């Protein structure tokens, strides 16, 4: 499977855009802008764009029931590397509180806070190392 096919399969397995061919837009979107606008990005995955460059893509559910695929400049997910103070990268609870998610554990878009967090792949292929992503 190509990276693009794998990305499509992962998005389908996440309940997003099942059976829809992955058409990656040419325009890259700033992930920070989406976050500032309050847009939630579920399961952004690595894929290859039309030039074969690895990028992150993510679907966003629109209010009209449709979805929009974004090509992102970075992953919206993050983890706390081992050795970083737990207070510098925490998981956000649904009630607004925070908690320690543990070393290296991935937190989805909007579910983390702190300067000690580093971007990471949101989801990986079973059996592969998370660090290598797709």
């Amino acid at each position, binding site marked *: 499977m190509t990276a693009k*096919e794998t990305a499509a399969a992962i998005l389908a397995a996440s309940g997003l855009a099942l059976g829809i061919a992955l058409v990656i837009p040419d325009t890259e979107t700033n992930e920070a802008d989406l976050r500032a606008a309050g847009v939630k990005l579920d399961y952004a995955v690595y894929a290859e764009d039309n030039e074969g460059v690895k990028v992150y893509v993510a679907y966003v559910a629109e209010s009209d029931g449709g979805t929009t695929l974004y090509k992102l400049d970075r992953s919206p997910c993050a983890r706390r590397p081992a050795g970083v103070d737990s207070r510098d990268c925490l998981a956000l609870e649904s009630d607004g509180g925070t908690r320690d998610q543990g070393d290296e554990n991935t937190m989805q878009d909007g579910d983390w806070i702190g300067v000690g967090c580093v971007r990471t792949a949101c989801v990986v292929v079973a059996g592969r190392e998370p660090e290598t992503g797709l």
Partner: protein
Amino acid sequence: MRLALVLALISGTALAQGRVYDRTCDVTSRRSSRGGVACGSVSYAQFEFAPASGAGMGAACACTTPTAATGEAMTFSRASVAWCTKGNETSGIANGDLVECASGQPRVMPGGDGTGGLGLSVWEARTNSALRSQELENAAWVLLGVTAAAPTRTANYATAPDGTATAERLQFVATGAAEGSVVYQTVGGGGVANSIGVYLKGASSAGTVDVCSSNGASYSCTACTFVAATWTRCLRENTVVAAGVDLVIGNASWRNGGTTRVANDVLVWQADQQVGATMGPPITTTSAAATRLGELADVALTFGAGTTGFSTAQTTVYPEGASPNYGDGLSRVLNGVPGTGVPGGAAASVNGSYPFPSAASLFTQDCNPSAPNTHTNARRSISGPLNRFVTYFNPVGAANLFGCVNDICDDGVAATWTAPTWTRYRLGNYTVSSGSTNAVIKKVCLDPSPLRCR
């Protein structure tokens, strides 16, 4: 000499015709039968895969590639690892019953309740969003007490279903109606149908705990009874909750409707939260959600051009599926009588997507698990240069089996059908990302005579 040559030619012609209509014996026996000698005890139809005898399948969870009953080769693809279960998928699971097959290796297993012959597990891609699925001692799993003590946790306390010493021990205190003593993880992914599951075993005795999906506002719990002798895979399926799903395991009286729980001493292993109305085979995660990719299986067919004798009244296919939901013993028939009814109606609801070129182009049979072996709405395939026949079983919703030839299917009216060159039989998924087989496929049979498919 001339007489011998004539006899040989006649014999050869008869043999060729017999290959078409009468392949009930292996080659040696078939020749013997021409001479009036009875066939051997094992006979097969024109094409059989995963027959009840197990021919061609090898051992359960050996992670080797099976063949069809008479040796036809199978090609298989899956670009990730996947778990195989040697017996019952949800109860009576012994240590060592679960085997992880490497990328590209098929999973041959009985499926369902573990009874019946071996089949081939074919699943769509699935993602487990529960981190550290076999490390419930990790900080990703939160111990919680609700007006009661939080559970006590001991890492790597016992042997797990895969034979490794990775099962955690969780000791939940007794809870009153408004109390809780649980371990949980927020796994996200709400808004669509989710299924959760976890392997449980009594550390010393049987008991009952709760497994819940919850987002704080809506609670969906299943009471899970476990025993001490073997593992039970507890499932909570087809739950739709809002965003921010919590996977909760333990004495969740304050979320289960107020049912009190006694103290429970439980071994816990491999928790899953998968998007889907039914729970799939487990998927191991570590620090990130992980996806088991979709599977494709094709079997080369050895009967080909010139095969005749197939008709809509005779061609019989018995793909038999088994999943944790439907168990074993399902027999679905593609047989028959040019159909009536409206094809494609059920297909339109397959996860909101329809993989075939036309929704009105089904070659399918109603295969409702509640009424197996029914023959209504039967369809026949189109005639033409056939080289690929596809069936797949969708356990979600209407639970239909779908079929297609050369990516195009038809519900035409002609009563007979001559099969041209058959080269490949695709078991299960239509593509790697379409057609939700999600079952163990067994007892696939293709023959001009329904009598030889059993």
